């Protein structure tokens, strides 16, 4: 290694922490297009990638960026792109291609206010449903929501590990505050990090079927130039990778597998954090930067004698339905603060069943204050 990877404590903003996390995860290909508030990731990697022998390329738009990282992934490199709302919209078509061709890759969306050009320099959580449903067709996907600069670093590595394990595009759904905020980040030495690489075929090329899954529903992945002479397509395909567009059997088997390889492994994928939930009568379910205000609100509520607790979602897709259902069963009500007009709250309501759910929306400049969330907690109590 010529230019060392960073280790130890550093003072970074979230975008830089994400970029350094990617390098430590083994990412050696970045394709992107400038967009606020994610540009710093590209800028930093344009300097750092060459120092590590990696590739930075600025594409003509986000459609091309997404296509390029799929290509790089198929050439054998760990690949990433970073964007915000408008770019994330443009990427959706090829996110579907990455899903269909099972290309491991990481997409960072530093969310700003939308719709359209919206509020480029302000935070939002308006893309969380798009993360799951943005590309046409049915599929499973993984999305993580960091709430600190440290987590921008940690979860970028986690996103690469998940993406490589399940051969699925993995989304880091950050927001403008987490992206631009400066905090201390402690970077562990590389040997202490758990880094996962995609599994390779264990059979000779003549026996290799590019999309034949193992028991975990994930097919081993050959790369271009390794002599396997395989075909991949965005069309509905059989285990060999060849198009079979008029067979309901092939379509059903493929699409169900693309969904189930995430659903059936959800217990291994899903991460969340519980605070003061054991005896809680009111629960707050929050994610991303909003979860920090929620934690403060829950503490204040406890000081005021209300048994409140926080379920902080780290993985939002696949959605932790079981965990939310469990919390709903033991509480009188759930409060969901989001920086949108009500997106993930729909999933919470679905899981909470009879338990009433109070939604607090916040749009614009600031996330919720702890007082606003506290008021909602008091309302439930």
């Amino acid at each position, binding site marked *: 290694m010529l230019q060392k990877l960073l280790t130890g404590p550093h003072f970074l903003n979230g975008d830089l922490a994400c970029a350094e996390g990617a390098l430590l995860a083994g990412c050696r290909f970045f394709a992107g297009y400038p967009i606020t508030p994610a540009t710093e990731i590209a800028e930093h990697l344009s300097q750092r990638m060459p120092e590590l022998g990696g*590739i930075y390329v600025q594409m003509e738009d986000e459609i091309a960026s997404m296509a390029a990282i799929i290509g790089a992934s198929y050439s*054998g490199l760990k690949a990433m792109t970073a964007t915000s709302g408008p770019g994330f919209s443009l990427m959706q078509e090829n996110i579907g291609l990455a899903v269909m061709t099972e290309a491991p890759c990481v997409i960072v969306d530093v969310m700003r206010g939308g719709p359209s050009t919206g509020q480029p320099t302000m935070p939002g959580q308006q893309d969380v449903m798009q993360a799951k449903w943005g590309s046409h067709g049915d599929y499973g996907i993984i999305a993580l929501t960091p709430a600190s600069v440290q987590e921008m670093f940690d979860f970028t590595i986690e996103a690469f590990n998940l993406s490589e394990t399940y051969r699925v595009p993995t989304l880091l759904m950050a927001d403008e505050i987490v992206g631009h905020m400066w905090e201390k980040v402690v970077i562990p030495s590389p040997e202490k990090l758990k880094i996962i690489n995609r599994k390779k075929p264990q059979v000779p090329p003549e026996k290799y079927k590019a999309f034949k899954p193992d028991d975990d529903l994930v097919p081993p992945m050959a790369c271009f130039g390794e002599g396997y*002479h395989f075909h991949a397509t965005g069309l509905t395909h059989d285990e060999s990778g060849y198009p079979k567009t008029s067979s309901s059997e092939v379509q059903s088997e493929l699409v169900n597998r693309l969904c189930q390889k995430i659903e059936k492994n959800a217990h291994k994928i899903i991460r969340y954090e519980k605070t003061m939930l054991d005896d809680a009568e009111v629960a707050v379910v929050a994610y991303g930067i909003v979860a920090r205000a929620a934690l403060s609100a829950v503490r204040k509520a406890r000081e005021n004698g209300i048994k409140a607790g926080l379920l902080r979602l780290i993985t939002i897709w696949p959605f932790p339905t079981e965990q939310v259902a469990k919390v709903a069963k033991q509480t009188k009500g759930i409060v969901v603060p989001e920086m949108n007009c009500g997106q993930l709250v729909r999933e919470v309501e679905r899981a909470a069943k009879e338990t009433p759910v109070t939604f607090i929306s916040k749009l614009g400049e600031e996330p919720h204050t702890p007082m606003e969330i506290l008021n909602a907690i008091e309302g439930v109590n």
Partner: protein
Amino acid sequence: MVLEEVHPFSKYLRAEMMPHIWCPGCGNGIVLNCFVHALDELKYDMDKLVVVSGIGCIGRTAGYINTDSFHTTHGRALAFATGVKLANPELDVVVISGDGDLFAIGGNHFIHAARRNMGIKVLCANNLNYGMTGGQQGPTTPLESLTTTSPYGSIEHPFNLVHLAAASGSTFVARWTTLHVRRLTQSIKKMMQKKGFCFVEVLAQCPEIYGRYNKMRSGLEMMSWFKRASVVENFSDPSKAEISSDKIPVGEFVDIEKLSYERMLHEKISKINEKAMEKV
């Protein structure tokens, strides 16, 4: 006993993918044939070759060639190929796609890949319309042509692809028709040996749709037009290479040397690493 003979080119094709989807009289088979001939004449190392296609009739080619291949979303073949080539510059990346895919929905990717001089080779089958979806007008449809979406005659000026490719920075630009199989094969061979961004256009007949609407109902009739109108004008002014019913300028128009993107990138990377070494 019947002797089973194997076609000498069958090793280049995926038998499992046959029969192909192309209509009787279609020019795409000739394009594929010439490409495979070129590979054979070059004794090409198939382990190094990656064929990428977009969407459309000719887009199925990636699936037919027995090498590493990828069939992308509509228009995105060049952007995908950019990632492939940069991530592993040892690979030879060929994009085989159509006029609609490369120049309408994918037009932006084309001009930028050419501008960057990405070391990718583009073989474009230009059939003057969108064949796969039933013959709509496209970016190369000649003025006044009848298509399913220009029933009163097209009023859009078509691209002169030779001019577009040259102006965007291609290091090699050629145009032939499916009639010119030997010269087309030679140009593909040349393209495969060059380092920078290369573009070969093949005017390929679409008798079932484009021809049917424009009084050329068979492949033969369309090729008669190619024969009647083609004029070899090697290294003539690309801006004058417009296709009309009377004249199809063909030949090799550009053949220059220019450092490819990946070569410049990797030179930069090694210089940066040397400097980083000094610092350490």
